[in-house]
C-alpha cells in the first residue's frame, strides 16, 4: 500500500495510455458522424410532421433519451444478438459506435429541431414563393441557417460523446479507459491509473473546447 502519490508512475503511464487514445477518438468521430446524419433526418421528420414516421421518430427520441447509455450499449451488444443472429458477428467497436450514434442522435435531433424552429418562418415562405419545394427550402436555406444556431450545442454533444466512449470498455473495446483499468489491476495503483486517464480526457476536452470557441467566432462573422 503506497501512502503518497506515485507521480513517476503517472508520467510513465501517460504515453502507454495515449496509444489507445486513437481508438477513443475514432469511436467519437464515427459516432458523431452517424449521430449527426441521423439527427438531421429525425429533426426534419419531426418539423415536417411526416405522417407515421413522425410518431416513430418521437418514440425513438423518447426511448434513447429516456434510458441510460450503458443500458442501451448492453441491450445492443449482449441482448439483441440473441434475437437477431445477424448481429452476432458484430464486434464491440462497431456496437459502441452504433450505440453512441443512436443515443446522441436522439439528443442532437432535439437541438437541431429547436434551431430549425428558431428560424423565422418567412424564410420558408420565401422559398415556396419562388417555386422551391419544402424539402429544397429546408436543405438549401433553413438548415444552413439552423446549423449556425445549433453548432454550439452540437459541439457540446461531441465533447460529451468523447467522454461517453469510456463506457465502451464494458463491451471489451480496447480503448483508453480499458487500458487504464488493466494497468490499475496489475499495478494496484488505482488512483494513479485513473488520474492519468482523467488527465488525458481533460486535455482532449480542453482542446476541443478551444476549437469550439474558434468555430463559433468564425460562424458569427459569416453573415
Amino acid at each position, binding site marked *: 500500500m503506497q501512502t503518497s502519490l506515485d507521480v513517476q508512475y503517472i508520467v510513465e503511464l501517460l504515453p502507454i495510455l495515449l496509444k489507445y487514445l486513437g481508438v477513443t477518438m475514432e469511436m467519437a468521430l464515427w459516432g458523431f458522424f452517424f449521430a449527426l446524419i441521423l439527427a438531421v433526418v429525425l429533426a426534419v421528420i419531426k418539423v415536417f410532421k411526416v405522417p407515421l414516421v413522425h410518431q416513430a421518430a418521437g418514440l425513438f427520441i423518447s426511448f434513447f433519451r429516456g434510458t441510460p447509455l450503458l443500458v442501451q450499449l448492453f441491450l445492443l451488444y449482449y441482448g439483441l444478438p440473441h434475437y437477431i443472429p445477424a448481429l452476432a458477428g458484430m464486434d464491440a467497436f462497431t456496437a459502441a459506435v452504433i450505440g453512441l450514434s443512436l443515443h446522441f442522435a436522439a439528443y442532437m435531433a432535439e437541438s437541431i429541431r429547436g434551431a430549425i424552429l428558431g428560424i423565422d418562418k418567412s424564410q420558408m415562405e*420565401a422559398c415556396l414563393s*419562388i417555386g422551391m419545394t419544402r424539402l429544397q427550402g429546408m436543405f438549401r436555406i433553413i438548415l444552413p441557417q439552423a446549423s449556425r444556431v445549433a453548432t454550439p450545442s452540437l459541439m457540446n454533444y461531441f465533447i460529451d460523446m468523447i467522454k461517453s466512449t469510456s463506457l465502451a470498455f464494458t463491451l471489451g473495446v480496447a480503448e483508453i479507459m480499458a487500458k487504464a483499468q488493466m494497468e490499475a489491476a496489475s499495478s494496484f495503483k488505482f488512483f494513479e491509473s485513473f488520474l492519468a486517464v482523467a488527465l488525458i480526457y481533460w486535455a482532449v476536452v480542453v482542446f476541443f473546447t478551444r476549437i469550439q470557441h474558434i468555430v463559433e467566432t468564425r460562424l458569427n462573422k459569416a453573415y
Partner: protein
Amino acid sequence: MITVQNLSKSFGQNQVLKDISFEVNAGEIVVIIGPSGTGKSTLLRCLNYLETPTSGSVEIGTAKVDAACATNKQISSLRKQSSFVFQNYSLFANKNALQNVAESLITVWKEPKKAALEHAQTILKQVGLADKADQYPSQLSGGQQQRVGIARAMASKGEVILFDEPTSALDPEWVEEVLVVMKELARQKQTMIVVTHEMQFAKEVADKVIFMEGGHIVETGTAKQIFDNPEHNRTKAFVARAAKNALTSFDSSML
C-alpha cells in the same frame, strides 16, 4: 390570365375573405387598396397558397387550383407561375444578393450554376444593385434589400409578381428607390398585383384599382374612376381620408 373565383378564407370562426372574384389580364397592373385588416395581404398570400384558401379557385397562366381538391403538384405549379415580394423583404439570410436572385434559377429552373449567376447579375443590374452582388442582406439598407427582393421575384420567371405592401416597412427615405423600380417594371408591362398604401403610386401606374373592405371587394375600376369618381360611399370615404392624410404629410414635410 389570372382568374380568381369565389375565394374565401377563414381563420377559425373569423372569415377574412368573403367570396372574392376578379380577373387580371397579361400586362395589367392591379393595385389593391383598402383599410388595414381588410384581408388584402391574405388575398395576395392565397394567390400562391402561402395561405390555403377555405374555398374557391385560383388560376394563373396554365395552373389552376381549386381549394376543394388542391394537390401538392397543382400548388407547386401555381407557385411557379407567380412570385412574391414581401413586406419585410424575407431575403435568404445565408445567401448574398446575387445568390438570392440566382436561387430559383438554380434550384427550380435548373439552370447551370454559372449561367444562373450571370443571369442573376443582369437582373441585379436592372434594379440598380450590380455593385452589391456579394453583400449579405444584413449588410444592405432596407431599400436595397427590397430591391433585391424584387430582383429575386423577377428571376423566378413567374407570369405575375405579387407585391405585399413592399414599401410599408421602409424608412421614408428609401420608399422612392423601390417605387422607381416598380414603375420601371410597370413600364415594361410586367403583370403585377400590388397591395399598397401608396396612393400616388396607384394613381400613376395602376390599370385597375380594387378597393377592399371587410373581406369584400367593394369596388373595382380604373385609377381615375376609383380616385376621382368613386361609386360607393365606403370608397368615397376611404379615398377622401387617404387624400387628406397625403395632404397632412405634405404639409408637415414643408415645415
